[in-house]
């Protein structure tokens, strides 16, 4: 089976990857600056794409830039920060309709690529400082983003569990950085972070869509030829093993529904095949609408509205999270562990395996029908140093045996239990 992604080096440490499929009506391009999470630098780096998004030297006026995007049939230009294992990914991306649908014969690929390259490489920096006003506003926005982690209780509880579990590991460094550092951001510090990023980090440019990627590739090649680069090699992270006693923490907040999060370490994944079997095992355990956790914790015992397991191959961590009534939290925790033990002993049916594989296949096929999902898939392949397409992953999954699944389940070790519970007075009021 051929690997459909074409990747080429266009400058020192800069790669352009593309995948084309005529069925789409749009083209998507993203520039990803990939760097190891660094506690000291993470915050200054996090503000950079948002300042860039406000305008470049040539598009110094935010309103004019947005008018330009409107004229490109509402193309969207987005800045974002992602986290993959121990990497922080600073991203800028543009999605626009293909030239086939342009009413005035605009060359959409060229226009969008030129705009994206301009925003990335011609920043509004004068005398070593970013535009002062934009920096101040984006610094405030970053502070708000950092503070708003408490808004969504589900993700907040997951994050707290991971904090406690991974304390000093780099994968627990927050992708948007830290309040105390954000307060210290200045137009100089942000510009310095930008310069360092452009000089030293690995840059992955991704193109997915129905158009011809070549003009975009040439635009980036030319623009990057003007930049002096001394790229540093990315070091892949090694997942940690569980050690010491299981940590248990209860925190209280003004909430109506409690949250239970359990962090597990997945140990000994030495090959892509093993990792693939692990993904299947975790899906069977708690990743589908017919998983062991869904069938037992939600449907059979009615303990919660959701109870799901997720496995992150980049950190070797599996998380189980659930929304529960305070009085049911212990019961839910015991049942989750009970289901895991049963799975480790091979107490699941052949049909569970077949059904999980089918579920997996649908999810992987869906990846190939979405530009955004393809972008994430192939970037993860590049950074995980693997070359597996969604179709090949389906093939791999089909080869996973019952024994592989049991072995995968036995690689899962409980590390941390975290509960976010209503304040005690509230609990009493509710009784």
């Amino acid at each position, binding site marked *: 089976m051929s690997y459909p992604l074409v990747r080429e080096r266009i400058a020192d440490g800069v790669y352009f990857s593309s995948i084309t499929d005529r069925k789409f009506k749009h083209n998507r391009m993203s520039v990803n600056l990939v760097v190891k999470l660094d506690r000291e630098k993470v915050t200054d780096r996090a503000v950079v794409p948002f300042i860039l998004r406000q305008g470049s030297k040539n598009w110094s006026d935010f309103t004019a830039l*947005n008018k330009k*995007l409107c004229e490109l049939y509402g193309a969207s230009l987005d800045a974002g920060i992602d986290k993959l294992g121990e990497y922080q990914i600073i991203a800028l991306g543009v999605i626009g309709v293909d030239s086939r649908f342009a009413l005035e014969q605009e060359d959409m690929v060229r226009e969008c690529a030129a705009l994206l390259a301009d925003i990335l490489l011609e920043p509004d920096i004068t005398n070593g400082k970013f535009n002062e006003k934009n920096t101040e506003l984006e610094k405030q926005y970053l502070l*708000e983003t950092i503070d708003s982690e408490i808004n969504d209780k589900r993700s907040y509880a997951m994050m707290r569990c991971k904090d406690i579990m991974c304390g000093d590991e780099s994968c627990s460094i927050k992708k948007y950085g830290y309040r105390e550092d954000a307060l210290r951001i200045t137009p100089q510090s942000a510009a310095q972070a930008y310069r360092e990023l452009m000089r030293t980090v690995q840059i992955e440019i991704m193109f997915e869509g129905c158009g011809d990627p070549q003009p975009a590739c040439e635009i980036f090649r030319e623009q990057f030829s003007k930049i002096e680069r001394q790229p540093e090699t990315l070091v892949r992270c090694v997942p940690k093993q569980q050690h010491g006693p299981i940590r248990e923490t209860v925190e209280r907040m003004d909430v109506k529904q409690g949250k239970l999060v359990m962090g597990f370490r997945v140990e000994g994944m030495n090959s892509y095949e093993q990792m693939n079997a692990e993904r299947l095992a975790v899906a069977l355990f708690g990743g589908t609408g017919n998983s062991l956790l869904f069938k037992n914790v939600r449907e059979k015992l009615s303990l919660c509205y959701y109870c799901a397991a997720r496995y992150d191959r980049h950190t070797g961590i599996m998380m189980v999270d659930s929304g529960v009534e305070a009085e049911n939290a212990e019961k839910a925790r015991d049942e989750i562990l009970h289901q895991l033990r049963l799975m480790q002993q091979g107490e699941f049916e052949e049909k569970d395996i077949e059904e999980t594989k089918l579920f997996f296949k*649908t999810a992987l096929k*869906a990846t190939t*029908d979405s530009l955004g999902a393809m972008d994430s898939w192939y970037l993860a392949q590049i950074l995980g140093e693997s070359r597996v397409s969604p179709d090949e992953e389906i093939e791999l999954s089909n080869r996973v045996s019952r024994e592989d699944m049991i072995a995968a389940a036995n690689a899962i070790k409980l590390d941390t239990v975290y509960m976010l519970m209503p304040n005690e007075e509230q609990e009493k009021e509710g009784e």
Partner: protein
Amino acid sequence: MKQEIVRDERLGEEYLRVEHPSGLTMLLYPMKGFSTSFAMFSTKYGSTDTCFKTAEDEDFVSVPAGVAHYLEHKMFESEDGDAFERYAKTGASANAFTSFDKTSYLFAGSDQFRQSIEILLDFVTDPYFTPETVEKEQGIISQEIRMYDDDPGWRVMFNLLESLYQNNSVKIDIAGTTESIAKIDAPLLYRCYHTFYNLNNMLLTVAGNFEPSEVLEAADRILKKAEPFSVERKTVPEPLDVVRKRVVQHLPVATPMFYIGFKGPDHGERDNFCNMILDEMILDLVTGETTELYKGLYEDGLISGGIAGETMTGRDYLCSMISGESKDPDQVYERICAAFDRAKQDGIDKEEFARVKKSTYGRYLGLFSKPESIASAMTNCYFAGVDVYELVELVANCTQEQLEERLREDFDSERSSLSIVMA
């Protein structure tokens, strides 16, 4: 069986519209090159249908809030296992949702499409629940309600709807309340099922990788001819005035969240839907990222995360909402009202109008690029009495005068309200 191919020259695409003898309308949109298919089986029955009258009823009957949603949960059950278990054998990923005016059951699949579509048509047309299983579901739904009670984004929107509407049941939470769902039992669910899950009141849309003949064969096998549908939904007159101008709820959030709403007059289902398209263009023109208003709000540090505008419509309501986070929501509200007032005075700028038309066209084109979004768009359009291709034409043909009329009617500061959630 009546079949018709509906074509669009602009997109160079087509779909099949089928009136099945059972009474069900089917809109089938095969897409070349795609690997997955997406199907959506919907009934025009949502959370706002709480007062209705069938041919047999003498008077209107009121039911507790949350029945449509409760029913959605229970439909997955059958005498021999639940629908999730059946789907598990085909690898399709299934789900369902209840909105204000419809309930939809859906799946996304790759292989075994024929089996998946059979499961979908079968379980939605074959209700099975007992007093015990209905009672058991209360625990799960209560958890769902509590989860939404803790969701500031959800609360800030519903608090706004409660401020805008005096009588319309759009102000009531879709899942109901823990008190209202306690009144729901099996006979009530059956009654509402038989009232609204009538194939003449339902729609099937499918998009992506599939053969229309597979759907038709499954429909022939499974669907039985439905009785004529004659249900009257009660519409309580809704005054134009809002209930209150401002509401605040305290929840743990970092930055205050706000929803600003403008209540528009009701022009009936189809016109409300078409007006929504135009109103969303107005939201872009007055509050979008290219406006002086936006620039001012951003530069003064009032909306660092941006703002989002949307218009929501149904059988008997239309309102436009602008949401975001701000350290000073009152100031944002004031400026937004002023911007609408100014736009009414000055009229719409010609260049801006052309630009927004172009970006809206691009946005609607996006609807046609994924099986999921096509199936959803076809459903939304059909229930409003609009063809999905009309969407693009509506945007392409709209005039400045049309927008100016909507601006006057639908964006009156007097009929607006502000909802805030803050710590």
